[in-house]
């Protein structure tokens, strides 16, 4: 029992740390990618190649004056960024970060917990995330913040539908909600491909919705500088602003992890059973591959951000309700028909 507890605590702390470090360096990565895509050099003053830049940014956030507007609702004002941060961190529990490690004959799974409603839990937690933005925006008692918050919630609700339906098609195919099992089903070899091969349309809808859910460009209307000053975090300063930004990067990391898990085989990689390595070596290599996939998607998020201009609000709603929703329903029906036909 103590063994089990120690192993779980180690795993939780490990995942927590890795999430924070990745989110921290995603801010640095974002600035570097932005610079490179615009033919610039990017931050290179703090440490070699500027790798200490996130630490400097974090320190700056802590040193800044903490301003709470006198007309705001102080309790909710503090609650907003806290919810955003907590919910962003909660989804990492469900991701299978690797296969099992066998130490002294006991097998230890690299997934913190594999509950059988896995995807539903992830969805539930991500949906709570919008409360952080909504509460923070409303509690600031600022018109721009409120507009940003309303946009954020409207956008998230619209895109969650299409996202959910695209996932249902995937669930119909895999027959399980557990993330661990979905990954195991995609294990390599013998014409067993990753889910993206069977669900290309679903993947497309999912990734577009993931952009919208993370409030990333081209759907970053909630914090659209040209119209809303800073959007929902206009009134925020110091580390509370840092929490909102951090939550965005953690969400991006988690979305990338969910994308890789659901559609790109998670910790599986091609020819993994033909290498003739020991089980533990393959597990570790698989985790490395999973992080490779995650980093690629994080890069993709940034790549798109620094390429596309922002959608107009009506275009955003149009795309969500009149394009993605019917498309995801069509995808669902198509999947159902194909499954029925195979079953016969």
């Amino acid at each position, binding site marked *: 029992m103590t063994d089990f507890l120690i192993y779980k605590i180690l795993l939780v702390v490990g995942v927590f740390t890795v999430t924070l470090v990745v989110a921290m360096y995603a801010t640095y990565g974002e600035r570097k990618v932005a610079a*490179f895509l615009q033919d610039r050099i990017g931050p290179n003053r703090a440490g070699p190649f500027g790798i200490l830049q996130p630490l400097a940014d974090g320190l700056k956030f802590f040193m800044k004056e903490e301003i709470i507007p006198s007309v705001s609702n102080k309790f909710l004002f503090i609650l907003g960024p806290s919810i955003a941060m907590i919910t962003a961190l909660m989804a990492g529990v469900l991701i299978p970060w690797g296969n099992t490690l066998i130490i002294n004959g006991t097998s230890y799974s690299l997934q913190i917990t594999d509950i059988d409603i896995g995807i539903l839990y992830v969805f539930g937690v991500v949906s709570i995330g919008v409360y952080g933005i909504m509460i923070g925006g409303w509690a600031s008692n600022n018109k721009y913040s409120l507009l940003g918050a309303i946009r954020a919630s409207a956008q998230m609700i619209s895109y969650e539908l299409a996202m959910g339906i695209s996932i249902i098609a995937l669930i119909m195919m895999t027959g399980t909600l557990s993330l661990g099992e979905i990954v195991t089903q995609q294990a390599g070899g013998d014409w067993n491909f990753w889910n993206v091969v069977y669900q290309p349309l679903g993947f497309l809808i999912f990734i577009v919705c993931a952009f919208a859910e993370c409030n990333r460009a081209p759907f970053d209307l909630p914090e659209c500088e040209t119209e809303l000053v800073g959007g929902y975090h206009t009134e925020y300063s110091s580390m509370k602003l840092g929490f909102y930004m951090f939550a965005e990067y953690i969400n991006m990391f988690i979305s990338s992890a969910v994308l890789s898990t659901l559609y790109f085989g998670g910790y599986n990689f091609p020819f993994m059973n033909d290498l003739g390595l020991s089980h533990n070596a393959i597990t570790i290599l698989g985790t490395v591959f999973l992080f490779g996939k995650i980093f690629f998607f994080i890069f993709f998020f940034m790549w*798109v951000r620094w*390429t596309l201009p922002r959608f107009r609000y009506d275009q955003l709603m149009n795309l969500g309700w009149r394009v993605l929703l019917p498309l995801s329903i069509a995808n669902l029906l198509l999947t159902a028909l194909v499954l029925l036909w195979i079953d016969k």
Partner: protein
Amino acid sequence: MESLSHRSKVVSNKKMTFLERIYLPAVLSGIAITIKHLFRRKATVSYPEVKREFSKIWRGHHVLKRDDKGAERCTACGLCAVACPAEAITMTAAERKKGEENLYREEKYASTYEINMLRCIFCGLCEEACPKEAIFLTDRLVYTDFARDGFIYGKDKLVEKVDERIDVTVRQTPAVLEFKKHKQLSHNK
């Protein structure tokens, strides 16, 4: 009228085609363009360590030259101030006293000479107007400051020091030297 660059497009309000409406081809071509920039040579340099090479005829911070004996060449004639399109130059003239022959070359000199570097557009017309070859633009930079006052450069910053002469020969390109040969132009006399 015929277009000069042939790059302007006539705006039309026609309906988008299906491919345009699903955004994806445009998105893909967009990200293909940006990924090319990832590997391109960077347009910026890490400034204090790496400095860009200046052009030979770079026009920067002005200098008021002294002659071979170390006397100031400027006679405060005011032609540079008249030529200046940005009205950045002001000066007051004064008469040379006895015993100051080693300081000023001619009987009249500029007791104050100020250039407002915020107004200056570094066009080099002052240099062209000067009949005494006293003012030149050099390849030095005008440094930043926090206040406007710091940008009004007086004689302390403009006149070259006797022991550290500033080389302006790089600005004397063959074309300039050729121009100076024409004695019929009044200012070359």
